[in-house]
């Protein structure tokens, strides 16, 4: 699975990378994935799987999916 962490979400993972590949043996819920990466769920404002917006609690992802997570963003 390809994971893209937008803006400051990559700050929460040790490698601080905005892109990472994760091997999934079976489908996992997005909530589990986020918890495993220790990203605070309250900092996720947008989640998309394969370009489609999804609700974090209802979604499972598999190894072939592309997942994007973004925090709240404003302007400046």
């Amino acid at each position, binding site marked *: 699975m390809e994971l893209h962490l937008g803006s400051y979400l990559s700050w929460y993972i040790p490698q601080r990378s905005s892109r990472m590949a994760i091997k999934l043996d079976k489908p996992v819920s997005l909530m589990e994935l986020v918890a495993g990466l220790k990203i605070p769920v309250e900092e996720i404002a947008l989640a998309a799987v394969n370009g489609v917006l999804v609700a974090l609690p209802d979604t499972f992802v598999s190894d072939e999916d592309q997942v*994007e997570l973004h925090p709240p963003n404003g302007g400046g």
Partner: protein
Amino acid sequence: MAYGTSGKILRIDLTQKTIRVERFDEDFYRLYPGGKALAGYVLLNELKPGTDALSPENILVIANGLLTGAPFSASTRFTMAARSPLTGSYGESEAGGFWGPELKMAGYEAIVITGRAQLPTYITIRDDQVELRDAQTLWGCEPKEVQERIRAELADKHVRVLQIGIGGENCVRYAAVTNELRHFNGRTGMGAVMGSKNLKAIAVLGSGRYPDQAHDIKPISEIGRALGKRVKDHPQAWDLQVKGTPGLVGAFNTGGFLPTRNFRQGVFEGVDNIKWEAYEKMLTARHTCYACAIRCKREVSVDDRYQVSAAYGGPEYETVEGFGGYCGIDDLQAIAKANELCNRYTLDTISASSTIAFAMECFEHGLIGLKDTGGLDLRFGNAEAMVKMVELIAKREGLGHLLAEGSKRAAQVIGGDAHLFAIQVKGMELAMHDPRGKVGVGIGYSVGEYGGDHLYSVHDTLVANAESITFKGAEPLDIAALPPRELGTAKARNYTILENWTSFGKVVGLCYFAPAPRSYMQVDEVLTAVQAATGWEELTLADLLRIGERATNLARAFNVLNGFSRKDDNLPERLFQPLENGPMAGTTIDKKEFQDTLDEVYRLKGWDPDTTAPSRDRLRELGIEWVADLMGV
């Protein structure tokens, strides 16, 4: 006893060639403590309603904020204000960089410039030594050369230069002003005001020290140390340092509210070619402003299909998206080139890109043709034509001469349905934020004093989740967590409180990227900094919000006296139409709900819902009842 300022305003009349220093006292500064408040006071008092913005009679105010020059991150900004040549309303723009703090060290809180020089002129300020100098040989030169020559002439490489390029000289109505080649007072055409006054540059060198003006430097130094240490431990500060604002492109596209093709669409199919991962490949350095540990400024360099000099920095989000998805262009090299040209010529990249997108839509609808464009196939997506059009606008050549007037005026000349394609409010083009995705930004576009800017209040998305860092940062301001697309009385209340907070930031010279809701700088630290700078220890958070509200009322009164009313507080019709693509396809804004929310905003502000004039009672509460006398309310 020091209270955070020298108490000195420099008055320069370019027609009479006179220079004098005016002093204000502490009571005055309590009401108008710099930036937007000081500028609003001067313009409202001294500028006759109806004055032509490009005439010698317009007044240009350059004012530092109360905290500008304090030695901590984000204390960098200064305001430029005048009647806007683009909107005819109160016009204002803030910039960071180094120039404002240098003016503070030279001993001045503000400069008020009147008249018009007979020949191109520049001003030098070295503490008490202020001179008007001949700029005839600098006129027409690009900012890098001008900066080098002024520094050579003054024999000091530390001189800070504020200046205009040829866009300002040619009075492009959305011309910007640059300092240090990379920092800009971008919006509302302050560069055109300088150009109309034959004023090429203002060079400043100060020998003062900030601690001599502060009441108590100790708490300020402590805040400086804490912020310096916090930068690596704060997710948003880290993000601004590593990616900066260009990181927003991908997020907005995923959300379906990335302004695309003149606000018709919310998703850009070429986004992968312009978002952060692509941008990073041309990044050459990260830079910063005075005393700021965040270092959010980008620098790019390209030597390929386009040559882009690193001297003029790199495009921010607004520019990447404005010349990118908004014009249907996915060529990042062309976008970087357009940014460099705007910076060399000093054009506001938001209005420049939006006006070009307007022209592209006119072209696609046959309202203008190849004859008008000089043979340029000005369709959405044509990067080469877009870059060429930036040149033509700055030089006021061909179609560029019309587009230099801004999209509203250009639409009036083109006629037909062109007005439907001019996505502007009060004549100023909207920034790259779609109110159909965050409706509070639309309230700002409507009621904000100079139209389509995105920095009147806090974006809804940042205060939507009560558990998020951004909401918690802003929580002391007594706001509610609300969905980004929700209108109604609670949203009106949030908007109004956060507008006062944002306006306060413009009065004291704080950058948007540090205090709440970003929360890198906590609300209580902001209060401590103001108390320490001034010695006004009785100040509360409510007082800070009142400072912001007072400044907004001064600007609103200026507009009312210049004929603005509720009819001007609108949104372009397009935003009430559905988005054409992406996850938000079909989304629109309900007109009645929007107007009802505006009614509530006016009620909370104490403004008349038709004339929008602030009430005498509210002005009295704010300590500026004289404004009611001026307006006759």
